[in-house]
């Protein structure tokens, strides 16, 4: 804040991502260093808001159990039907029993992304720690499930039997590498998209303090906000459908 006073113009696009203690006054105390794992931070608060929003939509919305649904119930049913169909289409009939887990991921990411678009809020899914955890849960879950269900045959998916014999070892190496790169791309895609979008928005918002270009900057912030709304939903969708695709390898057996 001293910088602003000195230069009159400063943009700190990354400050919005700082994790800090929630019940803490920055003027009198250090709110960011040595944060213990159990402390209540802005991450905790915004995750809690997401959980409450999900409960409001999915539990309170369907409270009436109405055959002719209310608007809220209708939204919950639409999301249910959308994800259920996705799981069924991509993973097949055997994958349907993992539907609650996929639904959990989708709703958490969707609500975190959308809540992050509220001004002054905190975007939990813009943090690599969060997305890496989500991606590793999927990766480890799928790998363990595949090994348990298919045994050693699960490794057969690295052996491309439709390729010429000479090429198979090479392809197997590539397949193994691409398999282990999955959680990296899976997590960085989500965090990167959100972080970049929010940072760009902040940069344009910072330019709005310059009188000459402020109309352009405000217009740009508005346009990017619309784009970010799209990105928030699309990234939740992408993460979910990739989860389904990976899940298919485990439940559908080895196809190649």
């Amino acid at each position, binding site marked *: 804040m*001293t*910088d*602003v006073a000195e230069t009159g113009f*400063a943009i*700190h696009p*990354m*400050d919005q*991502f*700082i*994790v*800090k203690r929630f019940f803490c006054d*920055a003027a009198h105390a*250090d*709110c*960011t*260093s*040595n*944060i*213990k*794992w*159990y*402390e209540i*931070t802005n*991450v*905790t608060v915004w*995750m*809690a808001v*997401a*959980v409450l929003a*999900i*409960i409001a939509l*999915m*539990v309170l919305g*369907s409270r009436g*159990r109405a*055959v002719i*649904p209310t608007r809220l*119930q209708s939204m*919950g*049913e639409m999301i*249910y039907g959308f994800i259920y169909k996705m799981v069924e289409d991509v993973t097949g009939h055997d994958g349907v029993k993992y*539907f*609650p*887990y996929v*639904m*959990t*991921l989708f*709703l*958490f990411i969707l609500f975190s992304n959308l809540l992050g678009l509220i001004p002054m809020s905190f975007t*939990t899914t*813009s*943090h*690599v*720690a*969060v997305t890496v*955890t*989500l991606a590793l*849960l999927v990766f480890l879950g799928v790998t363990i499930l595949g090994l348990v269900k298919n045994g050693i045959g699960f490794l057969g998916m690295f052996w491309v039997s439709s390729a010429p014999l000479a090429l198979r070892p090479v392809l197997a190496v590539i397949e193994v590498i691409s398999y282990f790169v999955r959680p990296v791309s899976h997590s960085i895609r989500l*965090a990167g998209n959100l*972080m970049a979008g929010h940072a760009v928005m902040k940069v344009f918002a910072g330019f709005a303090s310059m009188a000459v270009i402020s109309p352009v900057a405000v217009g740009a912030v508005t346009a990017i906000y619309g784009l970010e709304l799209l990105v928030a939903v699309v990234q939740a969708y992408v993460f979910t459908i990739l989860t389904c695709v990976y899940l298919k390898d485990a439940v559908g057996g080895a196809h190649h």
Partner: protein
Amino acid sequence: MATEAHEAAAGAAGHSAGMPQLDISTWANQIFWLVIALVVIYFVLSRVALPRIGAVLADRSSTITNDLAAAEELKQKAVAAEKAYNAALEKARADAGRIVAEAKAEIQADLDKATAQADVEIAAKGAESEARIAEIRAGALESVTEVAKDTAKEIVAALGGKADARGITAAVTAKLKG
């Protein structure tokens, strides 16, 4: 650890150079709360929300199916009722036709009987009349013989002759026969 804390402090001061995402010191906190959030969402969804919404969707689709089936059944009933109505109409028409035919036949029979009786009566009357005519004719012939005899006698008397009754009768009879 000390340098990380220093960096975080610098970030809080508003001129951080690095990305807060890469500040490993906050990861434990984020991951801990993330796992709690996911577990809560998972249990709420799998225990309450998803079974409930699934049941509502199943209810709705079964309601729709039942309504469609009921509509189909009612339609079938309507078709059956129409068929029964048409059959009844057809039967009534046939009955009416049969009754008309019966009545016609009966009338015809009565008529035939009456005609036959009338014919018989007419024939009887005719025969009687013929008998009467024959009788009258016979009577007339006899009368003619007598009148002729009488007239002949009178004529003979008028001419001054003596009427021989037997001769005249024989002559008249011969004349009439001839």
